[in-house]
C-alpha cells in the first residue's frame, strides 16, 4: 500500500482521542442524528462549525482524514448537478428539454452534498481517533441491552473485532496479489472497463482462498490457547465515564437539540 487506507486509527493524544469510546460512539450517533435532522441555516451552521472544530481539536492530518471526501469529488459533483437540474421546483431560472435549473434545486443539491460530506467527516473523526479494540469493547457495552432478546453480544463483538483486525492484513495481501498479477500480465493499469473487469477473478479468488486459510489458522490458534466462547472472558479494563466524556455527550446532545429549535 503506498497510500494509507482512510479511516484507519492515527495515533494522537488530543482531547478527542482521549474521550471514552462508549461516549464517543454515542456522541457520534447523536451528531449523525443532528446532520440528518438539520433543515435550517442555523442548524447547518451549528453542525458544520462543530465538525470543523472536532477536526481542529483532534489535530488529525486533514489530507488523510478527509481523503475519502476528496477522492469522491466526482460523485459529489454529479449528485449536485442531478439535484440542481431535476429538482421539481417552481419558477426555474432556465429550462431546456428535460433540464430545469432552479434555485430550489441548487439549494437541494448543496443540501445533499453537505450532508454526505459532514457524515463522512464525522465518521472519519470517530475511526481515526479510536483504536479498533476500544471501538469493539464500546460496541459490546452499548449492545448489552440486546442480551435480553438473546443476542450473543460477546460473540458478535468478538467477530467484529477479529474482522477489524484483519482488514490491514487483507489489504496488504490484496496489494501484493494485485502486484503479482500485474507483473504477469493482468491489465489493472488499463483504463478500459473490459480489461478492469477481466482482472476481478485473478484478484478475488486468491484473496478468498487466503481469507479462508487465515480464518482456519486463527480458529485453531484460538482454540489451542483455550478459547471457549466469548461469554466468560474478562474485560481488559472497566472504567466509569469521566467528566470529559459526559461533556462530550452533553455537547453532542445540545447540537442535536438545536436542530429541533430551528425547524
Amino acid at each position, binding site marked *: 500500500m503506498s497510500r494509507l487506507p482512510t479511516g484507519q486509527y*492515527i495515533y494522537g493524544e488530543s482531547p478527542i482521542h482521549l474521550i471514552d469510546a462508549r461516549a464517543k460512539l454515542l456522541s457520534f450517533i447523536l451528531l449523525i442524528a443532528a446532520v440528518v435532522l438539520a433543515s435550517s441555516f442555523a442548524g447547518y451552521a451549528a453542525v458544520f462549525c462543530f465538525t470543523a472544530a472536532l477536526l481542529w481539536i483532534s489535530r488529525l492530518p486533514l489530507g488523510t482524514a478527509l481523503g475519502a471526501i476528496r477522492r469522491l469529488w466526482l460523485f459529489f459533483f454529479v449528485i449536485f448537478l442531478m439535484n440542481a437540474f431535476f429538482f421539481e421546483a417552481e419558477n426555474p431560472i432556465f429550462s431546456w428539454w428535460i433540464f430545469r435549473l432552479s434555485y430550489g434545486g441548487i439549494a437541494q443539491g448543496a443540501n445533499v452534498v453537505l450532508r454526505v460530506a459532514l457524515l463522512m467527516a464525522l465518521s472519519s473523526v470517530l475511526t481515526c481517533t479510536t483504536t479498533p479494540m476500544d471501538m469493539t469493547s464500546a460496541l459490546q457495552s452499548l449492545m448489552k441491552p440486546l442480551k435480553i432478546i438473546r443476542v450473543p453480544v460477546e460473540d458478535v463483538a468478538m467477530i467484529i473485532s477479529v474482522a477489524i483486525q484483519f482488514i490491514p492484513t487483507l489489504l496488504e495481501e490484496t496489494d501484493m496479489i494485485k*502486484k503479482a*498479477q500485474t*507483473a*504477469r*500480465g493482468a491489465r489493472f493499469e488499463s483504463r478500459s472497463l473490459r480489461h478492469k473487469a477481466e482482472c476481478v477473478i*485473478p484478484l478475488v479468488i*486468491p484473496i478468498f*482462498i487466503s481469507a479462508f486459510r487465515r480464518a482456519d489458522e486463527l480458529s485453531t490458534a484460538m482454540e489451542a490457547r483455550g478459547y471457549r466462547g466469548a461469554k466468560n472472558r474478562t474485560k481488559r479494563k472497566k472504567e466509569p465515564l469521566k467528566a470529559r466524556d459526559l461533556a462530550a455527550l452533553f455537547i453532542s446532545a445540545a447540537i442535536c437539540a438545536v436542530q429541533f429549535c430551528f425547524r
Partner: protein
Amino acid sequence: MPVELENVSYTYASGTPYETEALENMSLKIKDGEFVGVMGHTGCGKSTMIQLIAGLLVPSEGKVLLDGNDINAKGYDRSVLRRNVGIVFQYPEYQLFETTVEKDVAFGLKHSGLDRGEVSERVRWALEIMGFSFDSIRNQSPLSLSGGEKRRVAIAGVLAVRPKIVIFDEPIAGLDPLGREAFLKLISDLNEDGTTIITVSHNADSMAEYAKRIIVLDSGRLIMDGKTRDVFSDVKRMEELRLGVSQPRLIADMLSKRGFEMPRDIVSCGELVSAIKERLIGGGCP
C-alpha cells in the same frame, strides 16, 4: 535489456503520519546477463527496490530506465515492461487462481498474441523447467498440490512469459536444503541461458555460490556493490553488517590460521575445493 535506477527515492504513505522513506537517492545499473544478489537487513528497502525495477511502484524522485527508456514516462508502452521483466514474490503460491495448472501458467500469455500451439509449447517448457511432467500435471487443480509444488507452478507462470529479466524476492526462504539447492541450480541455469537474474536473499552461502554480483542495502541506501568475490572477501565489513560470511570462506580462514595456507579470496564451495586440491597436489601437505 539493461535496467538502470537514476537517483531514485521512494517514500511510503507520503504526507501522512506514517511516512517512511524506504529508498534514498539510489543509482544502479544492471546489465544483460548479470546475476545480482541483493542483501541487507529486514526493512532496508530491498523489496521496495525490486518493485521499482518491476514498475510496480513509481519512484517519488528519480527515474527507472529499461533499455534506456523511462518506464514511468507518459507515453511508455508498459506491455514492453511486463513482457521483459518478471517478478516472483516471497509467497508466489498465493497468486494461483485458475482451475487447472495449465490455465494458470498460461495466464501471462493471454495477451501475448501467440497462437494456441505456441502458448501450449511455452507452458510445457516452463513446467518442465520447474521439474514437472507436463502431461501429468496440466489438468490438476493448483489448489490440490503441496506447498512446494504450488510454489513451482507459480514460478512457472512467471517464466512462461520468457522475461529477459527475472526478479526474485527471497525465493528460498522456507525451502528445505534440498529444495533450496535445486532451486538455485535452476535460476543459475536460466542465467546461463542469458536471463538477467536479480534475487533478494539472506543466505550468504547461496549468494556466494551463485551470484556474480552482490549489492548491499542499509537503511534505504546502497552501501556495497561489487563482484561477489570482492564483497564476501571483505569479511570484516560483512560481519559488522551482520550479513554473515560464507562457510567456505570461514573454513579457508580456519585452515590458514592453523598453518595450511589458503588464498584470501575464497568465497564459494567450488573455489575452496579446488584450492585444497591444488595445495595437496602441489605437495604442500603439512
